[in-house]
């Protein structure tokens, strides 16, 4: 059973078509990243999954249960974007409160809360009022409340927002550890480098339509473009690497050249050729692109007439 299943999801607000027939499936144990510009429909989709917003059309299931049933949220944790804790709570009392609401027993809360506060790095401030916290501390508390009841599915909307570089690394490590525990994580983030590092699969949503969806590996891979590094300057070799021997070449440094080929056989033929010319290869790397590049390219593409 998939952890998350969305079929033909449509959401219309007054005058706004937020989601236009989105389909999505996230398997158990997967880390899924949803990317999109502000207002693309990312948060709406998460809120529909959690029953916070009602869908206009379509079928949605979270752990096999429709979100209109509170049972669907029994094993789900959520960190909303711009969350606001009641500031009369301390971190400890807030976790006590949310833990009880999530159905945790008093004993389980007693055991889990101190550990979690330590894990997110705010144990020292556990008994201070939340109103005295910095944004980063509130974010850490937000992550703690989402993970409190050991959920099977975790929705994180901008989890590293306001967190410093060290904190971001800690959160990333935490998510990787959760993945090792076979937890399903649904991540909304603007920090594409982060998504690239953590996620198994990524979806790019634009104006309520899923524009692209694939594994990070596939999305960032560029077919038949390689960077070759040599012992010495490639200057004398460049005329021989021009078409038709290759599909194109570009000097990237004194001893580095990027070549485009039709297939792997062609690449091997080129390697054999340059060696016969006395150029020894010290490095060969298949060219990739960053997720950011993929994201920008995807959003720059004209619409192909997705869901109405």
């Amino acid at each position, binding site marked *: 059973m998939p952890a998350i299943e969305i079929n033909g999801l449509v959401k219309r*607000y007054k005058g706004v078509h937020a989601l236009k027939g989105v389909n999505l499936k996230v398997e158990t144990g997967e880390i899924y990243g949803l990317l999109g510009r502000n207002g693309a429909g990312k948060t709406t989709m998460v*809120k529909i999954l*959690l*029953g*916070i*917003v*009602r869908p206009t059309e379509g079928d949605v299931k979270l752990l096999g249960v429709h979100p209109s049933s*509170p*049972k*669907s*949220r*029994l094993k*789900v*944790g*959520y960190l*909303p974007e*711009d*969350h*606001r*804790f*009641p*500031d*009369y*709570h301390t971190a400890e*009392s807030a976790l*006590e*409160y*949310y833990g*009880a*609401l*999530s*159905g945790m*027993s*008093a004993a389980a809360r007693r055991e889990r809360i101190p550990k979690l506060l330590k894990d997110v790095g705010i144990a020292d401030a556990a008994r201070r009022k939340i109103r005295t916290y910095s944004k980063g501390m509130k974010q850490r508390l937000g992550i703690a*409340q989402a993970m409190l009841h050991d959920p099977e599915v975790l*929705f994180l909307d901008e989890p590293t927002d306001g967190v410093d570089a060290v904190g971001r690394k800690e959160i990333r490590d935490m998510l990787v550890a959760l993945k090792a525990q076979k937890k399903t994580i649904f991540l909304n983030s603007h920090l594409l480098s982060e998504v690239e590092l953590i996620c198994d699969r990524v979806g790019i949503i634009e104006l309520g339509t899923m524009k692209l969806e694939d594994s990070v590996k596939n999305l960032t891979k560029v077919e038949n473009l390689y960077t070759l590094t040599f012992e010495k300057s490639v200057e004398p070799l460049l005329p021989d690497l021009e078409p038709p021997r290759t599909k194109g070449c570009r000097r990237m440094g004194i001893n580095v050249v990027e070549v485009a080929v039709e297939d792997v056989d062609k690449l091997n033929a080129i390697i054999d050729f340059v060696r016969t010319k006395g150029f020894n290869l010290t490095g060969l790397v298949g060219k990739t692109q960053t997720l950011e590049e993929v994201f920008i390219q995807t959003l720059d593409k004209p619409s192909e007439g997705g869901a109405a």
Partner: protein
Amino acid sequence: MKYIAMLKDSFLEALDCKSLYVMFVISLLFIILLASMSYTQQDAAGTIRDMTDTFNVVHGGRDVGSFWIRSYAVRYNVDGVRDLGPEAKTFAGGWEFTVSLLTSDDPERRKTDLSDFYRLVRHWDGTERGMVKKQTDTIPDADKAPPPELSARFLRSMFLLRQVPKVTVEPVATDPDGATFTVKIKPWSRQTFAGAYKCHFLFGLVSFPLTGMSVAMWVFGIEVLLSQYLAGIFGVMIGIVFTADFVPNMLQKGRIDLLLARPINRSTILLYKYLGGILYAAITGAVFIGGSFLVLSFRSGVWNWGFLASLGTLVFFFAVLSSIGTLVGVMTRNTILSIVAPLGMWALGFGVTWTKNQAKDLISLFRVPDWLDRTLEIFSYFLPRASDFNVANQYFMRRYAVGDEVLELMRQQERLPQVPWVTTLVSSALFILVMLSAACWIFSRRDH
């Protein structure tokens, strides 16, 4: 567990805005004021004279808002006050004495004095028999001298109404005017003997006799003031103001998401927020009413347990108003409107009840068509009815203040305001149900 957590959250919210502390401090100030009251016993003969000085009025009007009173220029002599028991000095025994009408030596004036007394007795008799209901009704046989037995019954009734349940009044046969009586009385308790005590306030700085009033009635009056006016008006208002932001705060963007992502029904979340407000009112009310009750009771010896019941009526009334605030809070997410709406409805309900009572008088006086009365009657069923809650409140308190015997007498004389239990409870409960159902329906269907 989750339900307790939700109530605890509301309690923390109230603690954080310091409103609970403010309420506790205000309560403490009143409790100290009440603790500054003490009572000393008066002379028995003087007390009896003071009491008989008040036997010159007739009052009527059974319904709220239609009470009337008529006083006559009648005064009495009290002679030969004699102790009937060893405990007489402590007001626990009894007394025998003669009560006679005080008349002028001038024959013409004496005639007028007697005529006033006879008219007073006839007027009282007319109200007893239900023949005089309004001030404007004609008094039957007003100018005829009543039989001495009737005058004796009048005096007996006057003693009874002043919480002296054991009383015998015999006309003295030798008085041709039928205006002299032998009386034996035994008060119900020391505290219920009208005029028996002097009150000292502010730890003795101010002293005054409780003329014509028993300590029990004095305490009853204070308790009415505390529960009906201080707690019932100002306390409820402050409670509404302090709890009005519970729902709008909960609905704040970023905060509501954290709640709705939990495995709890939305209606449950809202209802427990509402109950959190009720809990706040119950706690502050319990401190105020409970503290006042203990201090008043210890200082006066009058343990009016009915006063504690007023906490229930107060909280119930607060629940009615708070349900309006909850609905408006869900609809608008605005704290100011959540304050204005319940207070406005309260004022409207008060206005309708007042107009309804006035309309009744107008109808009877000028024969105005009763469509207005009917319309107001129907309208009043759908609004918070503060006056009915006040009547219910007094019902409990009066029971302990005057005792069962006097209460029974008042009931026989139809001098007890009728408590519209069914309409008050049912219409108020239905009102809460409708408000909360609407609030839950909107909250459940809304996107956040």
